[in-house]
């Protein structure tokens, strides 16, 4: 593609298309769209972490007036599948069915009811009699694969549908292994060898809109599902699979979505709404309560063991990354999240010798899934703390240490070829990287080199820094498509499968089309994510939309532009190629011009009538990483253990920021979500595996008062494989806070925190334990 660097619409912060509608509180979300006569669904959930259902009697509930359908394992077909909204065939195990005769965590599905009111549905749940045979639960991932551990998936029909390691008899949901070079020898040969263990915790996405789905049986026998999802096309396929009906019977509509962050890359409730609608022949709405939302999907808690070797001169010798990932009761996303621990972290530095292995284990705890960062968060946590420790062990500045060792443009990493989404990966070399500039500008913004005192009283200050990478789409797997048609006033309809979940992708994609077509973004009317109307797209995940779907839009727009030029050349004379599209006009080389509306009128009404329009698809051959450097200054009260973040700097290379304000919004949102995870978010279980803090009162997330001063720096590069040089921006920055705050605490106190979150209790304990080297 051309490397045109001056754009007219791309690179401008045009207003978010749905912004003003949302700011009017317009009825655009799933729950705002309930039809008359809609029933309300509720789900009966397991009170036990591990139990067999020996008897279930729903006859009383079914006979209640106003109760229209009751579902449980006795009256719903058993279809093994995964809830993970991934491309088919999915790399996640088929270890889930709509209802099973076994429950595997506190909160697992037992039955569902649709009734005239939510209260009646809740009452009906109480009338369902269930008898359980209690089984010993597995509540510690370290013990899950021990010989003799209780088996969580003993059903004979659990399976994988692509050839990947899966041993449910050992509670092993997935396994990853790769090695490049002789790791033991390389570690032994290094001047310094460091071996540490890190542990990061369960967390929940907490979209402010909980999961909800409306299913409506239509007169023609089809079912329309309006749902709060990141993956409408996967919802269609997986619901059809669960209901054992053809895909053509299911129509999925995505309204505006109240946040996803990965939680809604999962088909968690649509099957229930659809089943209940089919049985009751009434529209059925199901929305999770906040406490249910906490148990919907979570971030994989992980134990990361990291061995690294470094020489005195600062050169990296070897890395051995060993991960124990807890996928909870079901294996959705377990393999792929864990693969990303390696593939989105190890290529950042030039390691000559690499080993990566991981076990993904079942436990009787809440189910993990996709969560912004997707495994990179957990592994970068370990890696970036250890990079800090390595730098200090050889007496090198952590900034200089990273500048010396990070991957360069034109270089590759063997990890790209070795690790993909379950199988082998896709080799790629780095085409664009602005990391050096991110590091330098970030260091300047935080005042890295300034002379500073760490403080003497109870308040100690410190600085930390980290480097990060992610990807942009899943190469050779993800596909996005777009179609564009021209209207008589010179506006365009852009139809995309791409799924705007609040990120602003509708706006960004309109800007890309507008840039090609020479119009303002408001001339591009976007319809997204309706499985009957728009072309296919895998959906909003894997940091893919701008890079992948954006290129599909650009291709479709180029096709349309060619058609416009052809008509315009008939009107203006000269060759189509010589015609430029700008400011809503087609311009010939002699300066003559026609308005696009005149082109459209001619093509629709006047001569050689035809619809100017095109459709295009795109798959990617690479997944170019965005890069980022984060810096933080903290103040720690050594008497209370309170950590206060004073300033946070995120410098980000996302290629071309198609819409800088929206890109900043992704960065700031991810940073604050990450800070909240680093400092306060965690799941607290009782000894029976029940989540104790399933409300915002007990599970604290950051609010306005907790916010540090945040500075966002966009460092433009140009990724030639992306639309107008763009890469991704949505996930990368959530990976920074966990390690950078730990590094800053170390700088302040000389104490390492390798277990998150850094609550006052944990900081105080670390001070007590590590006070002997407080002077380090």
């Amino acid at each position, binding site marked *: 593609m051309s490397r045109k660097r001056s754009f007219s619409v791309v690179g401008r912060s045009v207003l978010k298309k749905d912004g*003003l509608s949302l700011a009017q509180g317009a009825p655009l979300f799933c729950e705002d769209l309930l039809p008359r006569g809609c029933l309300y669904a509720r789900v009966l959930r397991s009170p036990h972490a591990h139990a067999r259902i020996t008897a279930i009697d729903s006859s009383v509930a079914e006979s209640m007036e106003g109760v229209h359908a009751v579902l449980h394992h006795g009256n719903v077909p058993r279809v093994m599948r995964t809830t993970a909204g991934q491309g088919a065939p999915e790399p996640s195990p088929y270890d889930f069915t709509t209802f099973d005769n076994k429950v595997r965590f506190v909160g697992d599905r037992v039955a569902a009811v649709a009734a005239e009111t939510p209260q009646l549905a809740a009452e009906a749940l109480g009338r369902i009699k269930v008898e359980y045979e209690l089984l010993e639960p597995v509540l510690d991932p370290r013990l899950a694969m021990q010989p003799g551990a209780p088996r969580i998936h003993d059903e004979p029909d659990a399976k994988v549908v692509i050839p990947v390691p899966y041993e449910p008899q050992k509670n092993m949901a997935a396994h990853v292994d790769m090695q490049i070079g002789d790791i033991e020898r390389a570690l032994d040969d290094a001047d310094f060898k460091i071996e540490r263990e890190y542990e990061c915790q369960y967390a929940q996405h907490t979209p402010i809109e909980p999961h909800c789905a409306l299913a409506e049986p239509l007169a023609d026998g089809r079912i329309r599902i309006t749902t709060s999802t990141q993956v409408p096309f996967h919802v269609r396929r997986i619901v059809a699979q669960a209901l054992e009906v053809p895909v053509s019977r299911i129509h999925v509509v995505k309204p505006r979505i109240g946040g996803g962050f990965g939680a809604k890359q999962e088909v968690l409730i649509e099957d229930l709404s659809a089943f209940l609608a089919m049985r009751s022949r009434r529209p059925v709405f199901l929305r999770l309560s906040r406490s249910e939302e906490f148990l919907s999907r979570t971030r994989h808690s992980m134990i990361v063991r990291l061995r690294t070797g470094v020489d005195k001169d600062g050169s990296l010798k070897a890395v051995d990354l060993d991960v124990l990932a807890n996928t909870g009761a079901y294996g959705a996303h377990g393999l792929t999240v864990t693969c990303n621990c390696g593939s989105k972290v190890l290529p950042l530095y030039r390691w000559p010798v690499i080993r990566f292995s991981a076990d993904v284990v079942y436990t009787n705890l809440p189910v993990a899934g996709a969560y912004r960062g997707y495994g990179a968060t957990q592994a970068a946590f370990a890696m970036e703390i250890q990079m800090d420790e390595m730098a200090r062990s050889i007496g090198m500045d952590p900034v200089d240490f990273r500048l010396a060792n990070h991957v360069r443009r034109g270089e590759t990493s063997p990890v790209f070829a070795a690790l993909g989404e379950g199988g082998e990966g896709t080799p790629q070399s780095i085409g664009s990287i602005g990391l050096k500039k991110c590091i330098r500008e970030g260091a300047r913004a935080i005042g890295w080199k300034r002379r500073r005192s760490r403080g003497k009283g109870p308040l100690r200050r410190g600085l930390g820094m980290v480097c990060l990478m992610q990807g942009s789409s899943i190469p050779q797997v993800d596909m996005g498509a777009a179609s564009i048609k021209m209207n008589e006033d010179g506006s365009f309809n852009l139809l995309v499968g791409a799924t705007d979940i*609040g990120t602003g992708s509708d706006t960004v994609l309109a800007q890309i089309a507008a840039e090609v077509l020479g119009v303002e973004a408001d001339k591009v009317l976007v319809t997204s994510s309706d499985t009957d109307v728009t072309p296919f797209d895998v959906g909003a995940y894997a940091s893919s939309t701008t890079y992948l779907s954006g290129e599909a839009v650009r291709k479709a727009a180029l096709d349309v532009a060619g058609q416009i030029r052809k008509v315009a050349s008939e009107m203006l004379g000269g060759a189509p190629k010589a015609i430029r599209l700008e400011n809503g006009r087609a311009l010939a080389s002699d300066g003559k011009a026609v308005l696009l509306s005149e082109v459209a009128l001619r093509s629709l009404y006047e001569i050689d009538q035809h619809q100017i329009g095109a459709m295009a698809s795109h798959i990617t051959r690479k997944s170019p990483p965005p890069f980022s450097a984060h810096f933080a200054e903290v103040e720690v009260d050594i008497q209370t253990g309170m950590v206060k973040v004073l300033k946070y700097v995120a410098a980000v290379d996302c290629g071309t920021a198609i819409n800088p*304000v*929206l890109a900043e919004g992704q960065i700031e949102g991810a940073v604050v979500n990450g800070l909240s995870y680093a400092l306060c978010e965690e799941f607290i279980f009782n000894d029976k595996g029940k989540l104790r803090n399933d409300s915002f009162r007990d599970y604290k997330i950051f609010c306005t008062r907790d*916010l540090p001063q*945040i500075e966002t720096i966009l460092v433009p590069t140009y990724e030639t494989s992306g639309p107008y040089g763009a890469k991704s921006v949505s996930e990368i920055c959530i990976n920074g806070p966990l390690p950078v705050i730990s590094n800053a605490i170390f700088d302040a106190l000389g104490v390492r925190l390798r277990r998150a979150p850094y609550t006052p209790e944990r900081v105080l304990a670390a001070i007590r334990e590590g006070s002997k080297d407080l002077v380090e």
Partner: protein
Amino acid sequence: MEIHVEVNHKPLVWKVNPGEILLDVLRREGYKSVKFGCGQGDCGACTVLIDGQSMRSCLLLAGQVEGRSITTVESLGNHDDAHPLQSSFVECGAVQCGYCTPGMLLSSKALLDENPEPDEDQVREALDGNLCRCTGYKKIIEAVLRAAERMRS
């Protein structure tokens, strides 16, 4: 039971059940801008103004607002005539998914009605009970300060 309220300056008579939650009644009566987020008064998505005060409609029974005046975002402005808070939220990038936005706007309005010249700390304090998971709050705070400035001039 019947209750008399004023919603967005319009006097109304509602038939409600004694145990009904204000959030549910408002949504049933068509005020869909008022959102369910947690049902426990923790997230602020259901914020409305009652006699100008920012309140959680999920914690109130409909019967408790007898004779009171309720403000929802539906009253703020529209596409052609947006309230300065609405336009500054959009311009600053303070709207991502938009689910917390109505609550944020109303808490901001309550602040600006009382204090037209807030500093950043006062904005943070006023929005403390409204959770947002998308934006990281920075642009929301900027938007409120910008709207305040615009409303003063």
